[in-house]
């Protein structure tokens, strides 16, 4: 047990050292040495970090309600235990689909389908910064990427929610029913308050996954790496760190490679902060 823990810690430190040592030349690199014609490392990293967070937050926002809904359907609302198990199996299968397949699906199926919706959003909600500007004609936008990632993080989030719903003390469920609660009222009074920390922890896990998601985003998103924009339906989209590394690495040499490794360090730091925050929240809820 102890040996395994030390091994994991060593691997983590090793990765960190690798990223820091190989990425550090990029932190001081000037114009011409960095990819995407960036003036300095910050100018390279900031838009990509924004893109990563932006896609992840969109994915989280899209997946949160369905995840809670599916988890409720599998537990409290399951007409029979067998139905709950079936739903769980379907989610596990969804989690087993390779990232590349989701990427292909997003690119070839989802993106074209979304184009009319984006045109509609622009026409009717164009006053919102998210939908202003000319909508993409290919559908390969931040919103499409967010949707694909949402489908990918749904299983883990639903599993976390399902677990915490299943842990609702039966005594509280009975208490609510005995007061004349309907099933939904019971859910609101007994299930959701107790499961709140589990839901949040699931969200954080999902967010962590979404931040690191590479292939699907790289395939779906038609990206402009130095862009910071809230617009989610435009043909000009910010890229994400992971997708940028994946798509730029094959044609990079020298200082450009160290810049990519430095970007990896940035992503690592963001993911670490998110997962620590998630852990904190989950622990706080459990202690109560």
């Amino acid at each position, binding site marked *: 047990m102890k040996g395994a823990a030390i091994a994991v810690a060593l691997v983590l430190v090793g990765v960190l050292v690798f990223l820091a040592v190989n990425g550090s030349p990029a932190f001081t690199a000037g114009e011409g040495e960095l990819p995407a014609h960036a003036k300095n490392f910050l100018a390279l990293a900031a838009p990509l970090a924004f893109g990563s967070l932006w896609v992840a937050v969109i994915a989280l926002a899209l997946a949160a309600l369905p995840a809670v809904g599916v988890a409720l359907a599998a537990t409290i609302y399951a007409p029979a235990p067998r139905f709950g198990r079936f739903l769980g199996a379907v989610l596990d299968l969804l989690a087993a689909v390779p990232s590349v397949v989701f990427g292909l699906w997003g690119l070839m199926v989802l993106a074209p389908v979304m184009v009319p919706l984006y045109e509609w959003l622009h026409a009717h909600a164009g006053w919102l910064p998210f939908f202003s500007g000319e909508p993409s004609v290919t559908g390969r936008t931040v919103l499409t990427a967010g949707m694909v990632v949402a489908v990918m993080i749904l299983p883990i989030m639903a599993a976390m929610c399902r677990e915490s719903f299943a842990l609702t003390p039966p005594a*509280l469920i009975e208490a609510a029913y005995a007061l*004349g609660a309907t099933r939904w009222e019971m859910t609101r009074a007994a299930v959701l308050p107790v499961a709140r920390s589990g839901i949040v922890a699931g969200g954080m896990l999902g967010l962590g996954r979404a931040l690191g998601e590479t292939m699907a985003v790289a395939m779906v998103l038609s990206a402009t790496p130095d862009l910071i924009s809230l617009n989610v339906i435009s043909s000009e989209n910010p890229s994400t760190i992971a997708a940028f590394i994946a798509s730029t690495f094959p044609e990079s040499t020298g200082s450009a490679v160290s810049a990519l490794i430095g970007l990896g360090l940035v992503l690592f730091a963001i993911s670490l902060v998110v997962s620590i925050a998630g852990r904190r929240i989950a622990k706080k809820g459990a202690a109560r």
Partner: protein
Amino acid sequence: MTATVPNSIGAAQAGSPPKDRGGAARVVAGGLDLGQTASAAGLEAIVGGIDPRLLAAQAAPAAPGSMSIQNVSCYYGAHLAVADVALEIPGRAVTAFIGPSGCGKSTLLRAINRMHEVIPGARATGSIKLDGVDLYERGIDPVSVRSKVGMVFQKPNPFPAMSIKDNVLAGLIIRGARPRGSAADELVERCLNRAHLWEEVKDRLKKSGDSLSGGQQQRLCIARAIAVQPDVVLMDEPCSALDPISTLAIEELMRDLARDYTVVVVTHNMAQANRISDITAFFSLASAGQPGRLVESGLTADIFSAPKVAATRDYIDGRFG
């Protein structure tokens, strides 16, 4: 009888957890207009079923909140847990269910407010009437049954995320009818007073219900149950998780509650049943796995001093199994 005839499409089906409160027929037993004929029928039922001396014990012959259990059997899936119970429960009195473990007394208790069917596969047949209205009639929404027939459980179960005050109001908060301002304060004070808890918690109503002792939590649960103005309060071994002092407080409270509510209590404590109940019903089962049955019921004084059935006497004397 002016009982509500269920005719709405939204009526919930028996045998499933409640889906929706919209449209389903409500039990209106408390406010029901009991005509002359109904009163006479109720009187007859009591005279016919129970020792006439009870009439003297009761202020009114057909005290509101009286229940009539007929041919009730409870199942868990295919397993018959309680077979064919017939029992009259007088209104505004304490009725105790006693008997060995597994005899189905808790199951029957839970069938009375249709909590039984919350368990997947569990169902009950027969009829349980509250002031003449059959709670198992087609189209009667179990949700409305439970707001008329409240329940207190073995282990105190206040909502941990709610304050003491909100716990009392929980039944109203749950259905989106949270009272505000002085109306809320009055209701909370009245119910906590009624549950003999007000003096102990009046200075910390904002604190979590978890901060109370077990006995206090149980009284909080009783306050919560009566805040939704039920006619009947069911108690499933309400003292078995409590110390003797807290038990005494709850027993006193049960006697007091019987002035305004019909109280039905399941207990393993013979002395308690003897102390607090007006009516005692003894349940037993032939052997493990066999369905539980009602062996005998009657005035508590009679059941404890002169039981008609040998099995009852053996159980009360502690000679059971």
